[in-house]
Protein backbone atom coordinates (compact mmCIF):
# COMPACT_ATOMS: atom_id res chain seq x y z
CA UNK A 1 0.00 0.00 0.00
CA UNK A 2 2.72 2.44 1.02
CA UNK A 3 4.75 1.34 -1.98
CA UNK A 4 1.88 2.25 -4.30
CA UNK A 5 1.56 5.70 -2.68
CA UNK A 6 5.31 6.13 -2.99
CA UNK A 7 5.29 5.30 -6.69
CA UNK A 8 2.44 7.72 -7.39
CA UNK A 9 4.18 10.55 -5.50
CA UNK A 10 7.57 9.75 -6.99
CA UNK A 11 6.27 9.70 -10.56
CA UNK A 12 4.45 12.97 -9.91
CA UNK A 13 7.57 14.57 -8.43
CA UNK A 14 9.97 13.29 -11.08
CA UNK A 15 7.62 14.02 -13.97
CA UNK A 16 6.92 17.57 -12.88
CA UNK A 17 10.63 18.13 -12.14
CA UNK A 18 11.37 17.14 -15.74
CA UNK A 19 8.64 19.52 -16.91
CA UNK A 20 10.21 22.31 -14.81
CA UNK A 21 13.48 22.07 -16.69
CA UNK A 22 12.07 21.44 -20.17
CA UNK A 23 9.05 23.77 -20.44
CA UNK A 24 9.27 26.51 -23.07
CA UNK A 25 7.36 29.03 -20.97
CA UNK A 26 9.08 29.92 -17.72
CA UNK A 27 5.74 30.66 -16.04
CA UNK A 28 4.58 27.09 -16.68
CA UNK A 29 7.86 25.90 -15.17
CA UNK A 30 7.01 27.80 -12.00
CA UNK A 31 3.60 26.12 -11.83
CA UNK A 32 5.16 22.68 -12.28
CA UNK A 33 7.64 23.58 -9.54
CA UNK A 34 4.64 23.95 -7.19
CA UNK A 35 3.52 20.44 -8.14
CA UNK A 36 7.01 19.07 -7.49
CA UNK A 37 7.13 20.68 -4.05
CA UNK A 38 3.71 19.29 -3.15
CA UNK A 39 4.75 15.78 -4.16
CA UNK A 40 7.95 16.07 -2.15
CA UNK A 41 5.81 17.13 0.82
CA UNK A 42 3.84 13.90 0.32
CA UNK A 43 7.13 11.97 0.27
CA UNK A 44 8.01 13.59 3.62
CA UNK A 45 4.72 12.41 5.11
CA UNK A 46 5.55 8.92 3.86
CA UNK A 47 8.92 9.21 5.63
CA UNK A 48 7.26 10.15 8.95
CA UNK A 49 8.40 13.78 8.74
CA UNK A 50 5.09 15.56 9.20
CA UNK A 51 6.68 18.77 10.46
CA UNK A 52 8.89 18.98 7.39
CA UNK A 53 5.93 18.36 5.11
CA UNK A 54 4.10 21.30 6.68
CA UNK A 55 7.21 23.49 6.47
CA UNK A 56 7.73 22.44 2.86
CA UNK A 57 4.22 23.51 1.89
CA UNK A 58 4.46 26.76 3.87
CA UNK A 59 7.91 27.90 2.74
CA UNK A 60 8.43 26.35 -0.68
CA UNK A 61 4.90 26.45 -2.05
CA UNK A 62 3.73 29.46 -0.12
CA UNK A 63 6.78 31.69 -0.22
CA UNK A 64 9.54 30.71 -2.62
CA UNK A 65 7.35 29.85 -5.60
CA UNK A 66 5.25 32.96 -5.12
CA UNK A 67 8.45 35.01 -4.99
CA UNK A 68 9.61 33.37 -8.23
CA UNK A 69 6.28 34.08 -9.94
CA UNK A 70 6.55 37.68 -8.76
CA UNK A 71 10.02 37.93 -10.26
CA UNK A 72 8.84 36.37 -13.54
CA UNK A 73 5.94 38.81 -13.75
CA UNK A 74 8.23 41.76 -13.01
CA UNK A 75 11.05 40.88 -15.36
CA UNK A 76 9.72 38.88 -18.20
CA UNK A 77 7.61 39.76 -21.17
CA UNK A 78 5.34 36.85 -20.45
CA UNK A 79 3.60 36.72 -23.78
CA UNK A 80 6.59 37.04 -26.03
CA UNK A 81 7.04 33.37 -26.83
CA UNK A 82 9.79 34.01 -29.33
CA UNK A 83 12.29 34.20 -26.47
CA UNK A 84 14.51 31.15 -26.47
CA UNK A 85 14.69 29.58 -23.00
CA UNK A 86 17.56 27.16 -23.45
CA UNK A 87 21.10 27.77 -24.60
CA UNK A 88 22.93 25.83 -27.28
CA UNK A 89 24.37 23.25 -24.85
CA UNK A 90 21.32 21.01 -24.57
CA UNK A 91 22.96 17.92 -26.03
CA UNK A 92 26.18 17.96 -23.93
CA UNK A 93 24.12 18.89 -20.87
CA UNK A 94 21.74 15.98 -21.32
CA UNK A 95 24.72 13.68 -21.85
CA UNK A 96 26.35 14.92 -18.63
CA UNK A 97 23.09 14.61 -16.73
CA UNK A 98 22.52 11.08 -18.00
CA UNK A 99 26.05 9.98 -17.09
CA UNK A 100 25.71 11.55 -13.64
CA UNK A 101 22.36 9.85 -13.08
CA UNK A 102 23.55 6.41 -14.16
CA UNK A 103 26.72 6.67 -12.08
CA UNK A 104 24.89 7.81 -8.97
CA UNK A 105 22.23 5.10 -9.28
CA UNK A 106 24.94 2.45 -9.66
CA UNK A 107 26.80 3.87 -6.67
CA UNK A 108 23.62 4.02 -4.57
CA UNK A 109 22.63 0.48 -5.48
CA UNK A 110 26.08 -0.98 -4.80
CA UNK A 111 26.56 0.65 -1.41
CA UNK A 112 25.56 -1.42 1.59
CA UNK A 113 23.67 1.13 3.70
CA UNK A 114 23.75 0.46 7.44
CA UNK A 115 19.98 0.27 7.70
CA UNK A 116 18.92 0.03 11.33
CA UNK A 117 15.67 -1.55 12.38
CA UNK A 118 14.87 1.19 14.86
CA UNK A 119 11.87 3.47 14.81
CA UNK A 120 11.64 7.24 14.79
CA UNK A 121 10.54 8.67 18.15
CA UNK A 122 6.82 8.61 18.82
CA UNK A 123 6.36 12.38 19.23
CA UNK A 124 8.52 13.65 16.40
CA UNK A 125 7.57 17.32 16.30
CA UNK A 126 8.19 17.61 20.04
CA UNK A 127 11.53 15.87 19.54
CA UNK A 128 12.56 18.28 16.74
CA UNK A 129 11.76 21.27 18.93
CA UNK A 130 13.71 19.83 21.84
CA UNK A 131 16.75 19.03 19.68
CA UNK A 132 16.74 22.47 18.04
CA UNK A 133 16.88 24.09 21.46
CA UNK A 134 19.47 21.76 22.99
CA UNK A 135 21.85 19.78 20.82
CA UNK A 136 21.54 21.85 17.65
CA UNK A 137 21.20 25.26 19.23
CA UNK A 138 24.38 26.67 17.63
CA UNK A 139 23.42 25.75 14.03
CA UNK A 140 19.97 27.07 14.81
CA UNK A 141 21.36 30.45 15.89
CA UNK A 142 23.78 30.55 12.94
CA UNK A 143 20.95 29.89 10.52
CA UNK A 144 18.92 32.69 12.04
CA UNK A 145 21.88 35.04 11.50
CA UNK A 146 22.11 33.77 7.91
CA UNK A 147 18.44 34.62 7.40
CA UNK A 148 18.93 38.11 8.84
CA UNK A 149 21.98 38.75 6.66
CA UNK A 150 20.12 37.47 3.58
CA UNK A 151 17.21 39.77 4.39
CA UNK A 152 19.46 42.82 4.75
CA UNK A 153 21.45 41.83 1.68
CA UNK A 154 18.35 41.40 -0.45
CA UNK A 155 17.13 44.86 0.57
CA UNK A 156 20.52 46.46 -0.13
CA UNK A 157 20.86 44.74 -3.51
CA UNK A 158 17.31 45.44 -4.58
CA UNK A 159 17.32 49.11 -3.53
CA UNK A 160 17.26 51.65 -6.32
CA UNK A 161 20.54 53.54 -6.16
CA UNK A 162 20.39 57.29 -6.24
CA UNK A 163 23.39 58.42 -8.19
CA UNK A 164 25.48 60.86 -6.19
CA UNK A 165 23.13 62.41 -3.68
CA UNK A 166 23.40 61.33 -0.08
CA UNK A 167 19.78 61.65 0.91
Amino acid at each position, binding site marked *: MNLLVFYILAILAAGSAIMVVTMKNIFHSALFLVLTFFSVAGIYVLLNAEFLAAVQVLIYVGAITILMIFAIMLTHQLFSRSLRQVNEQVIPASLITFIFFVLSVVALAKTAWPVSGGQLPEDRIFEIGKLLMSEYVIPFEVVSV*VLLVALVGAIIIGRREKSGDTK
Partner: protein
Amino acid sequence: MNEPALLHFLILGAILFACGIFGLLTRRNAIGILMSIELMFNAAAVNFVAFAKYVAPQAMAGQIFAVFIITVAAAEAAVGLAIVMLLYRNFKGIEVDKINFMKW
Protein backbone atom coordinates in the same frame (compact mmCIF):
# COMPACT_ATOMS: atom_id res chain seq x y z
CA MET B 1 7.50 -6.35 0.69
CA ASN B 2 4.93 -3.62 0.66
CA GLU B 3 7.02 -0.85 2.13
CA PRO B 4 9.32 1.38 0.06
CA ALA B 5 12.96 0.79 0.94
CA LEU B 6 15.75 3.30 1.44
CA LEU B 7 17.00 2.85 -2.12
CA HIS B 8 13.66 4.00 -3.58
CA PHE B 9 13.97 7.37 -1.88
CA LEU B 10 17.63 7.74 -2.77
CA ILE B 11 16.89 7.12 -6.44
CA LEU B 12 14.06 9.67 -6.33
CA GLY B 13 16.57 12.14 -4.89
CA ALA B 14 19.01 11.31 -7.68
CA ILE B 15 16.30 11.92 -10.31
CA LEU B 16 15.42 15.30 -8.81
CA PHE B 17 19.09 16.25 -8.56
CA ALA B 18 19.73 15.22 -12.17
CA CYS B 19 16.79 17.38 -13.31
CA GLY B 20 18.30 20.26 -11.35
CA ILE B 21 21.69 19.80 -13.02
CA PHE B 22 20.10 19.67 -16.46
CA GLY B 23 18.14 22.87 -15.85
CA LEU B 24 21.18 24.58 -14.40
CA LEU B 25 23.24 23.78 -17.49
CA THR B 26 20.66 24.60 -20.14
CA ARG B 27 18.49 27.48 -18.90
CA ARG B 28 19.16 30.94 -20.27
CA ASN B 29 16.78 32.64 -17.89
CA ALA B 30 18.25 33.45 -14.47
CA ILE B 31 14.95 32.60 -12.75
CA GLY B 32 15.01 29.18 -14.44
CA ILE B 33 18.46 28.61 -12.97
CA LEU B 34 17.18 29.52 -9.50
CA MET B 35 14.32 27.03 -9.93
CA SER B 36 16.82 24.30 -10.83
CA ILE B 37 18.82 25.10 -7.72
CA GLU B 38 15.65 24.76 -5.63
CA LEU B 39 15.09 21.33 -7.18
CA MET B 40 18.59 20.30 -6.13
CA PHE B 41 18.01 21.55 -2.58
CA ASN B 42 14.87 19.45 -2.46
CA ALA B 43 16.74 16.37 -3.67
CA ALA B 44 19.28 16.78 -0.88
CA ALA B 45 16.52 17.25 1.69
CA VAL B 46 14.72 14.09 0.52
CA ASN B 47 17.96 12.15 0.99
CA PHE B 48 18.45 13.59 4.49
CA VAL B 49 14.93 12.68 5.57
CA ALA B 50 15.22 9.18 4.09
CA PHE B 51 18.45 8.60 6.00
CA ALA B 52 16.80 9.96 9.14
CA LYS B 53 14.14 7.29 8.89
CA TYR B 54 16.18 4.30 7.77
CA VAL B 55 19.75 4.72 9.04
CA ALA B 56 19.68 6.70 12.29
CA PRO B 57 16.08 6.97 13.45
CA GLN B 58 16.77 7.71 17.11
CA ALA B 59 19.04 10.73 16.52
CA MET B 60 16.66 12.48 14.07
CA ALA B 61 19.61 14.53 12.81
CA GLY B 62 18.44 14.15 9.21
CA GLN B 63 15.14 15.89 9.85
CA ILE B 64 16.84 18.71 11.75
CA PHE B 65 19.26 19.30 8.90
CA ALA B 66 16.41 19.23 6.39
CA VAL B 67 14.94 22.15 8.35
CA PHE B 68 18.25 23.98 7.96
CA ILE B 69 18.31 23.18 4.23
CA ILE B 70 14.86 24.71 3.79
CA THR B 71 15.95 27.83 5.68
CA VAL B 72 19.09 28.25 3.59
CA ALA B 73 17.05 27.69 0.42
CA ALA B 74 14.70 30.48 1.45
CA ALA B 75 17.63 32.85 2.06
CA GLU B 76 19.17 31.85 -1.27
CA ALA B 77 15.93 32.49 -3.13
CA ALA B 78 15.54 35.94 -1.55
CA VAL B 79 19.08 37.07 -2.42
CA GLY B 80 18.99 35.40 -5.84
CA LEU B 81 15.77 37.10 -6.85
CA ALA B 82 17.09 40.46 -5.61
CA ILE B 83 20.10 39.96 -7.90
CA VAL B 84 17.76 39.03 -10.76
CA MET B 85 15.80 42.24 -10.29
CA LEU B 86 19.03 44.25 -10.25
CA LEU B 87 20.22 42.55 -13.45
CA TYR B 88 16.91 43.32 -15.11
CA ARG B 89 17.18 46.95 -14.12
CA ASN B 90 20.72 47.30 -15.46
CA PHE B 91 20.63 45.07 -18.55
CA LYS B 92 16.93 45.10 -19.54
CA GLY B 93 16.95 41.33 -19.59
CA ILE B 94 17.85 38.31 -17.48
CA GLU B 95 19.34 36.02 -20.13
CA VAL B 96 22.54 34.90 -18.47
CA ASP B 97 24.45 34.41 -21.72
CA LYS B 98 24.07 38.11 -22.49
CA ILE B 99 25.38 39.19 -19.10
CA ASN B 100 29.10 38.64 -19.48
CA PHE B 101 30.67 42.00 -18.79
CA MET B 102 32.92 40.46 -16.11
CA LYS B 103 34.22 37.86 -18.54
CA TRP B 104 37.83 38.40 -19.45
